[in-house]
């Protein structure tokens, strides 16, 4: 039997690991555990009291409006992901394959700049552009179209999601495709592949992992975003983050909000793990 090398407890290594472990325990694991516990608490006379009752879970799960909100949030986050991935692709493709190295570096730097400014401020600036008397409708008015209602619609929500996710998705797609071995694209051309077909035949298969990571990021950000559906979508159909806010406001129902939050986390974990599994999946039949 081959002997496994004995793992010695090293005080030195442990000392360096300790800060991050403590941080994670105190600010992540602790709150999550508390939130799970809280979902079993009861609210009496607008005050939260410790208990272990399943009433919050059964109440939320049996409400139609919760499930409406759940599926709506899943759907619009998915639509947002598809839109962001499609809108980002031409830009990322050009930056990865057509632009020079220095242009690409500058572009990535410029794409980071939006993150310097508050997401809320960027969202509000869309009012000026999308409102009934805004820039877009004024332009369309010149050619006799509109005005169109764009604020307080699903379209408005999606515009907000794009504001949030598009720069990140372009960056992730660009870096992914810039790292592709260009020889493989030339090889495909050399073996009779038409220019556009190289995207399906070579570039996407080679970019699979990076693109799935970009899509997961986009879905997570959209799924959990409160600002876009609230301000630009007008919370017509409340998404789960809006539902959490409403629940806490109405009758101090923190335990029920915790139920929603836990279900959101569970959903995101499932999607993230499924995505990663897909990204690193071994090909069928390959040994």
């Amino acid at each position, binding site marked *: 039997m081959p002997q496994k090398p004995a793992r010695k407890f090293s005080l030195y290594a442990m000392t360096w690991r300790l800060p991050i472990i403590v941080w994670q325990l105190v600010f992540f694991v602790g709150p999550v555990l508390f939130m799970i516990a809280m979902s079993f608490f009861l609210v009496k006379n607008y005050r939260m009291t410790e208990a272990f009752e399943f009433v919050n879970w059964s109440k939320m799960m049996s409400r139609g409006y919760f499930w409406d909100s759940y599926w709506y949030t899943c759907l619009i986050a998915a639509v947002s992901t598809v839109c962001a991935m499609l809108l980002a692709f031409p830009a990322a493709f050009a930056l990865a394959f057509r632009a020079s190295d220095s242009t690409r570096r500058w572009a990535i730097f410029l794409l980071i700049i939006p993150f310097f400014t508050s997401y809320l401020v960027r969202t509000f600036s869309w009012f000026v552009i999308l409102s009934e008397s805004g820039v877009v409708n004024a332009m369309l008015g010149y050619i006799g179209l509109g005005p169109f209602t764009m604020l307080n619609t699903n379209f408005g929500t999606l515009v907000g999601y794009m504001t949030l996710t598009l720069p990140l998705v372009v960056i992730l797609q660009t870096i992914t495709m810039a790292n592709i071995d260009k020889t493989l694209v*030339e*090889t*495909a*051309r050399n*073996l*009779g*592949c038409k220019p556009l077909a190289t995207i399906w*035949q070579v570039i996407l298969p080679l970019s699979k992992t990076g693109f799935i990571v970009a899509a997961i990021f986009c879905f997570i950000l959209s799924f959990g975003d409160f600002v876009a559906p609230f301000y630009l979508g007008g919370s017509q159909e409340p998404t789960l983050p809006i539902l959490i806010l409403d629940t806490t406001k109405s009758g101090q129902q923190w335990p029920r909000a915790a139920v929603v939050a836990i279900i959101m986390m569970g959903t995101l974990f499932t999607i993230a793990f499924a995505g990663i599994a897909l990204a690193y999946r071994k*090909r069928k*039949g390959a040994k």
Partner: protein
Amino acid sequence: MSAPLVVFDKVEKKFDDFTAVKELDFEIREGEFIAIMGPSGCGKTTTLRMLAGLEAPTSGEIRLNGQVMNDVLPHERDTPLVWQSLALFPFLTAQRNVEFGLKMRGVGKAERAERARKWLDKMGILQFADRDISTLSGGQKQRVALARSLVMEPQVLLLDEPLSALDAHLVIRMQAVLTDLQRELGITFVYVTHSQSEAFAMADRVVIMTEGEIAQIGAPKDIYRAPANQFVAEFVGRNNILSGAVEAISDDTAKITTPSGDFAVPMNEVKLAEGQRASFVISADLVHLALDKPASENAAQCKLISEEFIGSMVTLFLEDAKGHEFKVQMQERELSTFDLKSGDDVWLSWDTQSAHVLSEE
């Protein structure tokens, strides 16, 4: 002689203000194994890439079968390339890699599987057909890459330093595989390399390039024995190069005065005039070694500097009184009869007919 398969007609390629290839003019015959050889940056890979359509010539014409290829897109050409990096698709199995080109050409599923497996079998790697590329060894990957190009049954196969990533013993084996394949299939091979041993071992003709221009085209033996100019003579190596002024001319020989002495050279190819500067080479293996001054009219006294063994062959590096370097190549058992050590004085000599005058500077 059959009509040329490929013609480079005054082909020039510029990248911004850098000229990679200048006025390239040569022909490749059908069924020929041609090697394009030269140091890094000499334009050999650019030449190959232009033939594959991956670079467009700035001016001039490339013709394949008489058809001008300049505006033919890469995917419309029948010029598969075996890459230095092999460039196998990592997301496909060995067999799917080989099928790729057929799929792009619209060959049906059953037929392309059959043809791919036939070529994998021919390359002796059928048992790895369903394996991931990453699980294959260097030699196996090499064979997949070859099969992927050959399955297209092209008229001409392009190879860009395909053996440079392999271990030395594998290189020799793959050289044999390549030459056998080329003979058997009768396909024209255009083989780019910086390795003289690969080019000379396999090619029917070698094109030597430097700084975007052709320095010499010829059979390996001709290039070795009769280099056209100083660059080729030095690049091919194992040559002694001497330069001087032409002192006297007789019927078929000329006497050249060099700092290392006066030597006679034959004048069968290059016409020399008295007073003209001229250079000539003597292959290192045509130089005789002696302890006493030989009777030959071409003799130089040298000091032994060092020895280099390659198997049973040994190369001696020597220097004359003026500091000019000489190289002598001989069998090790032949050398052992002399019992030499570094610093010993010896005499070098050669037959006049062994010297070859360089036609240009």
